């Protein structure tokens, strides 16, 4: 059987009335009370059927709750009398019962909206006689209006909450629900709350409402968003009916957001990077072709430039160049070079310019570079006085292993440095983050680790976004999809 949503008022204008206005109001009120009671009693899986005996035929309406507890109504197109009363014969009681869906086990209400129609009256009376316990009404005004009214005033069967982000004690962002409406709240219920929103650069702050259950299961009710300027907002949420929440206090209307829940959750950053002093350590591999090295250095220059534009006074910068170990007896091994340590952006750009003039070093041992020594060097030299460390590595090759590696057959580091050990030492620095810009190579474990905060290809990196993800710029560059709330005790 074909089904569709609740019809518009015009689509259901098919009835006349013979009762007085006062009488009509009384019938309407009785019908509303009956339907309200039935809808309120609906549980998940249950349904309410309203069989309407209209001028053109039998129309069946069905109300069920969705998984969020919101009552939803649908109706089936009228089964015309002309298909039931043929050549003077009338349908059987069983046929009428089947058409009215009176045997489905759902609650049933009978409504005759065409008391002057002989077929409607006949069918209505026969079903009423068959189901004497079922409430029945003669109501000639549009039934859809009554149903809309009933559904809109149905009190919530589950509390509604707004999805927000909260800072945990460790500084991470946690998704939480902030209650808007309790169980039993009805249309017009209002709740005022203060939220903080970050600028979203066009992606929009998402106002996602969900219905909760005791077992903390939740179902999304609505997902809407609006592009807001960063700041605090005192908003009022008003329950317009089950599944309908209106937010006042925002500078414009919310629009429906088509992103999936998984997408939105994935966009939540691990922590909110508020601008605070950072120590950007750039390690750049200078082995490779001339063009490769020039492009890597160019990305470093852009990154430093972006940081200098926004957080010049809050960021110290170090620059390290490295290449391959020498395994040639005739060529001494040159360790990674610290070109500048915790300098200003101007000092670092000057050092970078000299490195650019020097260009690529000899290709040397082509299968690895001194990444393990670079990490060891940083771990040994770093302290937290210069700010939160942000290590950005730009290169391609894997590190030399600590010892013979049968899998890769890459020659071991002459100094037996172990990149994993150095990596774990670095992780002990509070707030440290890692970014990597790579121009080629396989998915080695080290590059996944070095790019754990931000990973980009050298020819397709958006340095502002890259820096934003590492918390190097103001938080404006960081997308925070949901409103933030502060909770007592934090």
């Amino acid at each position, binding site marked *: 059987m074909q089904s569709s949503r609740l019809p518009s008022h015009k689509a259901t204008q098919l009835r006349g009335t013979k009762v007085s206005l006062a009488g009509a109001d009384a019938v309407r009120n009785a019908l509303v009370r009956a339907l309200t009671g039935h809808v309120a009693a609906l549980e998940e899986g249950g349904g309410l059927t309203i069989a309407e005996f209209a001028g053109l035929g039998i129309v069946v309406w069905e109300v069920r709750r969705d998984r969020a507890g919101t009552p939803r109504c649908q109706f089936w197109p009228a089964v015309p009398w002309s298909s039931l009363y043929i050549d003077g014969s009338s349908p059987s009681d069983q046929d009428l019962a089947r058409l009215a869906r009176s045997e489905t086990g759902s609650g049933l209400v009978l409504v005759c909206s065409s008391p002057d129609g002989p077929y409607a009256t006949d069918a209505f009376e026969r079903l009423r006689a068959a189901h004497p316990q079922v409430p029945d009404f003669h109501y000639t005004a549009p039934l859809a209006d009554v149903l809309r009214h009933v559904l809109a005033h149905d009190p919530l069967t589950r509390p509604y909450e707004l999805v927000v982000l909260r800072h945990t004690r460790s500084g991470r962002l946690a998704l939480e629900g902030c209650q808007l409406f309790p169980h039993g709240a009805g249309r017009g219920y209002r709740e005022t709350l203060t939220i903080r929103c970050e600028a979203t650069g066009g992606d929009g702050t998402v106002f996602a409402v969900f219905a909760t259950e005791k077992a903390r299961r939740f179902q999304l009710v609505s997902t809407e968003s609006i592009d807001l300027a960063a700041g605090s907002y005192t908003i009022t949420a008003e329950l317009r009916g089950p599944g309908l929440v209106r937010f006042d206090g925002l500078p414009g209307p919310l629009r429906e957001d088509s992103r999936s829940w998984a997408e939105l959750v994935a966009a939540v950053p691990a922590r909110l990077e508020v601008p605070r002093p950072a120590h950007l350590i750039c390690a750049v591999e200078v082995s490779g072709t001339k063009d490769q090295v020039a492009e890597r250095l160019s990305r470093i220059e852009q990154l430093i430039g972006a940081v200098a534009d926004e957080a010049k006074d809050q960021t110290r910068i170090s620059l390290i160049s490295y290449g391959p170990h020498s*395994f*040639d*007896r005739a060529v001494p091994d040159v360790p990674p070079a610290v070109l500048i340590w915790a300098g200003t952006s101007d000092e670092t750009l000057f050092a970078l310019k000299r490195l650019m003039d020097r260009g690529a070093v*000899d*290709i*040397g*041992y*082509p*299968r690895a570079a001194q990444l393990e020594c670079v990490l060891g060097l940083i771990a040994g030299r770093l302290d937290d006085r210069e700010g939160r460390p942000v290590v950005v590595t730009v290169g391609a090759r894997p590190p030399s292993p*600590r*010892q*013979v590696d*049968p899998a890769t*057959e890459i*020659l*071991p580091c*002459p100094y*037996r440095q172990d990149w994993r050990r150095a990596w774990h030492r670095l992780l002990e620095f509070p707030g440290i983050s890692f970014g990597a810009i790579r121009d080629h190579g396989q998915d080695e474990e080290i590059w996944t680790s070095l790019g754990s905060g931000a990973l980009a290809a050298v020819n397709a990196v958006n340095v502002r976004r890259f820096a934003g993800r590492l918390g190097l710029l103001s938080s404006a560059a960081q997308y925070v999809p949901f409103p933030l709330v502060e909770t007592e005790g934090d």
Partner: protein
Amino acid sequence: VASEVPPEHGIAMWGAPSSGKTTFLAALNIALTRRDDGWKVVGTDEASAETLIGLTTALTRDRTFPLATQGIEHYRWQLVGRVARTIRRGRFRRERREEVIKIRLDLADARGELAAPDQASRGVRADLIDNLVRSRGIVFLFDPVREFTLGDAFDYTYGVLAQLAQRMVDSPEFSDGWLPHYVAVCVTKFDEIRVYETADKLDLLVTDLDDPYEFPRVADDQDARHLFARLCEVSRSGNADLVLNTLEQHFRPERIKYFVSSAIGFYVDPRAGVYDPADFQNLVPDPDDPGRPLIRGAVHPINVVEPMLWLGERLAEPGA
């Protein structure tokens, strides 16, 4: 006193193309020079002497592997050394004295063996069989890395041995059905990770306390054979086990000895001066041509001299 092993009883070096015969020869020269015990390789003519210098220089100075030399089978070298012999003096006296012996050294190349039987191939093949018929000692080189990637050792072995047997079928030395040669089977490229790891997993590695570099070795003949058999299991063609069987079917078991060798040996960090199991690879890619290996450190041949001396001593025995 000098004696020369009969010219028809030399040592032939045999192995598939690119199995490392010329490198082995150069490494032999280096290793003998290091030992300083009187054994040496000499060229019997000017061209052979110069070629030997070139091969050795490539390994030591240029850190490269000698290129397969065109017509290498036409050069002539001799392994010259001293062996102790017991001489009978009269009815009861026996005297032990040193004798200088000279053993012809041939590089028998199997190139062209599988190619179409054109004139050039037939010539090379005939030279190879001639060398083997004339010799009584064979250094058979088995390259496990080549076998893993190409798997052609059996192809280069079986036909040659069948033809050798056919050529010697009427010889009195073949009357018992065995070919009369002594065979030193050398499993090469011990320094390569895959070979080393296999030996290590089989628990075959030992270290000689008298070795100043403390290099690992597969010292025992039977352990070497065990490693050879295990390496045959990863042959690309799956036929490498037939190499072992074919050799043992044609030569007397007591005249076959197995060695695990490396022409360049393991890397030794000059600062440490001893072998380091954490860093032993002695090959590095050439920066200008990463597909081409260069030798990383000093060359320390392993089990290159030993098979030669074993063969030399056997051939110097009366009646060999």
